[in-house]
């Protein structure tokens, strides 16, 4: 009996690759799919979790070398801005204290509980006013993973309270902010019954409210103007990530100097003595980091695809009248020029933000990358242009970029991670939530974990 209990509790329901397989299998069966399809889906989800782990550990090792070199040379704490690697960085810190796989397990349970809470909040929409079901699985798992880390770090709670607190916080955030965007999203899509469920919902709402005060959407609609298509290459997610990595690596190499680079080549660094030429070594580092990130992403994509199928099916079955909260990119077809201009203005804001951090002697420097750069600027840009024209877009997207940098610096200071989300909700609302949790933990005299 105790053997079976141990098998269930310690070897199945706490092993992310098996836990996820079981969830996906149940999801397929609940959707009345064949057993063979359910098994294939379950195995693919398992493989996805393992692939994510491979990418994550390679990334944290390699990115760690670069950050350590920067810290040794300047005393600065560096952190990259990317959503998926922030989740796995939090998981790794939890695993280091609680045991292998624990972070991911708690994250997955939080995802399931938060999704159920989200459905309940929508089912009670008469009282809660929450009408949107959050269906962007790729953002959901990241958000649950990071909330679990924040709650555990500051409240020091055990498995069940951590999961419940995290799930309540995340489900309320999903429900409130995606519901706020139903009205403006309907205007943007010309009547489609969907809303944005992503990670810059607060800034989207700010843009919707503030943009009309800055400009005239009729006169200055960017969608009616011409834009050059030569900037398209920047929208290539892999190439843009590589560009960010090349710039970051080159800048760090300039800062740490010849001795630092030699140390980076050595056994305590990347252990790549063969790359004697510094430029080739720099390219190798940047390409390796991009590849590690891609592997991480490919893993997430594999299991999220399987999970989303069940989530979507279950919510459509239980709550047929609910508004679907979907990925922000679902709006991009409706306003392609706002996407490009918003992305560029947001990127400019982030670059100026990083320069201000360095010039003012901040102990933390941040390295921008594609996801927070592209998806925030582009989405805020769509809302700003639709309700205030291109002038509002330029102002609001630039400000979004600045806010992303300063808010993320505050978050990194509190959370001590090598990665942070960078997206604007996590540079505003979630910085405030983190500060509140930190304050509660300090008031109760709870030691900071991880």
């Amino acid at each position: 009996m105790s053997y079976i209990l141990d098998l269930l509790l310690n070897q199945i329901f706490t092993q992310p690759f098996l836990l996820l397989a079981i969830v996906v299998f149940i999801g397929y069966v609940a959707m009345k799919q064949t057993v063979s399809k359910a098994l294939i889906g379950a195995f693919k989800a398992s493989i996805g979790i393992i692939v994510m782990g491979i990418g994550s550990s390679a990334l944290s090792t390699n990115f760690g070398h670069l950050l350590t070199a920067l810290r040794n040379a300047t005393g600065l704490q560096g952190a990259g801005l990317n959503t998926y690697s922030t989740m796995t960085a939090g998981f790794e810190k939890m695993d280091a204290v609680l045991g292998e796989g624990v972070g991911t397990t708690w994250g997955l349970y939080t995802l399931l509980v938060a999704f159920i809470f989200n459905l309940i909040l929508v089912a009670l929409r008469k009282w809660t006013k929450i009408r949107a079901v959050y269906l962007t699985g790729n953002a959901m798992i990241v958000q649950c993973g990071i909330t679990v880390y924040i709650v555990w770090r500051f409240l020091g709670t055990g498995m069940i309270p951590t999961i419940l607190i995290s799930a309540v916080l995340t489900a309320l955030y999903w429900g409130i902010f995606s519901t706020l965007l139903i009205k403006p999203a309907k205007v943007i899509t010309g009547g489609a019954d969907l809303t944005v469920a992503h990670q810059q919902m607060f800034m989207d709402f700010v843009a919707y409210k503030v943009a009309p005060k800055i400009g005239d959407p009729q006169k200055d609609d960017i969608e009616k103007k011409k834009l050059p298509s030569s900037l398209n290459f920047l929208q290539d997610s892999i190439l843009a990530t590589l560009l960010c990595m090349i710039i970051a690596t080159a800048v760090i190499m300039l800062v740490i100097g010849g001795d630092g680079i030699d140390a980076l080549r050595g056994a305590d660094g990347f252990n790549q003595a063969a790359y004697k030429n510094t430029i080739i070594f720099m390219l190798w580092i940047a390409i390796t980091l991009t590849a590690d990130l891609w592997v991480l992403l490919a893993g997430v994509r594999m299991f999220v695809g399987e999970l989303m199928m069940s989530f979507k099916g279950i919510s459509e079955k239980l709550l047929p009248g609910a508004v679907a909260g979907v990925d922000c990119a679902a709006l991009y077809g409706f306003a392609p020029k706002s996407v490009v201009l918003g992305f560029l203005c947001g990127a400019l804001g982030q670059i100026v933000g990083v320069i201000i951090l360095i010039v003012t002697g901040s102990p933390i420097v941040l390295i921008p990358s594609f996801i927070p750069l592209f998806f925030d600027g582009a989405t805020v840009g769509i809302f700003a242009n639709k309700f205030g024209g291109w002038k509002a877009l330029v102002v609001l997207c630039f400000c979004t970029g600045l806010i992303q940098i300063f808010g993320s610096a505050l978050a990194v200071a509190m959370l001590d991670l090598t990665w942070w989300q960078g997206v604007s909700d996590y540079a505003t609302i979630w910085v405030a939530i983190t500060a509140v949790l930190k304050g509660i933990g300090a008031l109760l005299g709870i030691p900071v974990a991880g």
Partner: protein
Amino acid sequence: MLNIVCVCHNGMGTSMLLKINVNNICMENGISASVEACSHGEAAGFLMNADIVLTSPEIVEMLPPTDAVILQTTNMLDKATVTELLVNCVKEHFPNEM
């Protein structure tokens, strides 16, 4: 068996939801297909064996060259629109697959 590829900016969110819809549409209309989701930046590998590509107009010009039939709509997540596009395309180009 048709190979259908859904393409968006990062291959994680929109194209994934589209993929789920396309899977359901194929099942409902008796189309036998294998469906994948990807970003336009990594589409070259996926498009080698693709028969149909589903994406949004602003992405079309960023796609690598392909022999596949390209279907585009501004509202990728509207199931009715995608159903119409897809079913008409299969009837016209791949009548044996229905």
